[in-house]
């Protein structure tokens, strides 16, 4: 459902407003609100899932309760809702010596970075807000937008820990863009298109026509992309910008309440984006694994979201299993391991396509 289609539909439904600018605003606003809801719900669900997954891996049960009103509802389902309410009602503290304007701006910059990337995620054959012919390129470009917000947050807090966090995250995200981009190039080489829908169309025909299974090189490319994606979302073992045992909270040390929750929201939105790209590029997007079955619009949303959730689960699994890397080791992994492997992959996929393609 692109903005254009919505605009045409509005034009037809409300003929008395035809051609009015209000319709353009509406056509933009409606999907944006829907998108915001998606991101908010995503964060609610993922925070709950993260708590539960981590708890189960650590022999705990996580948030629990006996029913509504007692603790956090049955199985603690209301825990994230309660957290959200708490965050909204918390005092909003801005340090006296902070750079006020930048401090206020930073969380929103990060959030915008995540928000505009979700636009290009295809939830189904027609369920996409902006089907650009350079979709994957667009997402790669705008997802590094958030790093500006991180640096802003780190700098404006006027706190040494935040500064360290901001600097670390800038170095990290920019470095890891490269292996991520290079491994997506293998996808683009195979599909010969930059459009998200085009990439997915290429993978139609069931489980074994997904790019991840098409050649050993593309499998390695998937792994490389996934590792880079974890690093880009600042999650353990690459969570050095936040690193609570070293940097207290990194770039969000000084934030509290609603502003802090925006960092959280955008972290989970970023997870949605990078996993969405991985699903689109390697796991067949919204395509059903069994060709010809379960491929209605409803099912396509189901497939896309369940694939994303699977990858998100793997990310959580990684987080709750491994220690954190040091900042120079992080760079080592990027430049000495992932980058050569990704470059070699491009070569390998090229040869593979020449021989078998």
């Amino acid at each position, binding site marked *: 459902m692109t903005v254009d289609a919505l605009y045409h539909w509005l034009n037809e439904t409300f003929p008395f407003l035809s051609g009015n600018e209000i319709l353009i605003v509406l056509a933009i606003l409606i999907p944006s609100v829907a998108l915001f809801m998606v991101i908010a719900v995503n964060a609610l669900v993922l925070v709950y899932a993260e708590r539960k*997954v981590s708890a189960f891996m650590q*022999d*705990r*049960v996580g948030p629990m309760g*006996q029913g509504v009103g007692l603790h956090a509802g049955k199985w603690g389902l209301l825990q994230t809702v309660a957290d959200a309410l708490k965050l909204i009602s918390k005092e909003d503290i801005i340090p006296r010596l902070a750079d006020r304007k930048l401090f206020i701006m930073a969380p929103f910059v990060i959030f915008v970075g995540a928000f505009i990337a979700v636009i290009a995620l295809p939830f189904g054959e027609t369920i996409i807000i902006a089907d650009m012919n350079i979709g994957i390129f667009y997402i790669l470009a705008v997802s590094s937008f958030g790093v500006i917000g991180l640096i802003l947050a780190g700098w404006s807090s006027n706190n040494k820990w935040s500064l360290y966090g901001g600097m670390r995250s800038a170095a990290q995200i920019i470095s890891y863009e490269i292996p991520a981009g290079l491994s997506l190039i293998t996808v683009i080489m195979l599909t010969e298109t930059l459009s998200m829908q085009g990439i997915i169309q290429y993978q139609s025909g069931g489980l074994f026509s997904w790019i991840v299974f098409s050649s050993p090189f593309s499998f390695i490319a998937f792994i490389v992309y996934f590792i880079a994606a974890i690093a880009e979302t600042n999650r353990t073992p690459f969570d050095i910008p936040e690193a609570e045992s070293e940097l207290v909270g990194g770039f969000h040390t000084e934030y509290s309440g609603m502003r802090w929750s925006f960092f959280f929201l955008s972290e989970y939105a970023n997870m949605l984006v990078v996993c969405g790209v991985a699903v689109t590029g390697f796991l067949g997007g919204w395509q059903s694994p069994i060709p010809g079955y379960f491929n209605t619009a409803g099912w396509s949303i189901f497939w896309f979201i369940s694939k994303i959730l699977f990858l998100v689960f793997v990310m959580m699994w990684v987080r709750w*299993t*491994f220690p954190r890397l040091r900042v120079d080791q992080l760079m080592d992994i990027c430049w000495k391991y992932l980058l050569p492997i990704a470059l070699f992959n491009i070569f390998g996929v090229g040869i593979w396509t020449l021989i078998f393609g």
Partner: protein
Amino acid sequence: MKQYFLNIWETIISLSTGFGITWVHMLNIKKGNVTLQYPEEKWPRPERNIGFNHDDYNVIRSRLTVDMDDCIGCLKCMRACPVDCISIETVKAETRGEDIKDIGHVGITSSGSKKAMVVTRFDIDMTECCYCNLCTYPCPEDCIFMTGGPNADRHPIDYEFSEYDRTDLIYRFAKKGSKEKMEAQMFPKKEKAEA
């Protein structure tokens, strides 16, 4: 070069071992879970009535309680306390081993010894108490103890004694009115003079 691939290999092996462990733990959560939902479920307290010689000692570390009917005011617990959280004041009774009805003073303890003192003040500041249990051992009448244990029938064990006000944690065990009454007895002239 060999080291390079060896590193990658070692990383893959060790990381997948870790993955396996957390995965197994996640699947066996029903069996492995150690969390108790506190207000509904509580930690099972170790079985107390095995093996301990309850006549002599009690091994509970909980709230301190005094059975005032048994207290002879010997101050041994006060002296044993390393943090001085017990404060006791006594007044010599007129006749040894006789009840004083109007302040509830019992003259003879449950073990049969006759009291010479009336305890007018017996305060335990539980905010200071370090739960070392040192005060309970020297007591000749076994009247100061931590709740539960051998005295569980009279004072069931109680670990949960948080209060809204800090002053509520200062336990005053002396019989109500005993201080005023005894002072009035000790200084009758003064009272008369004032009157």
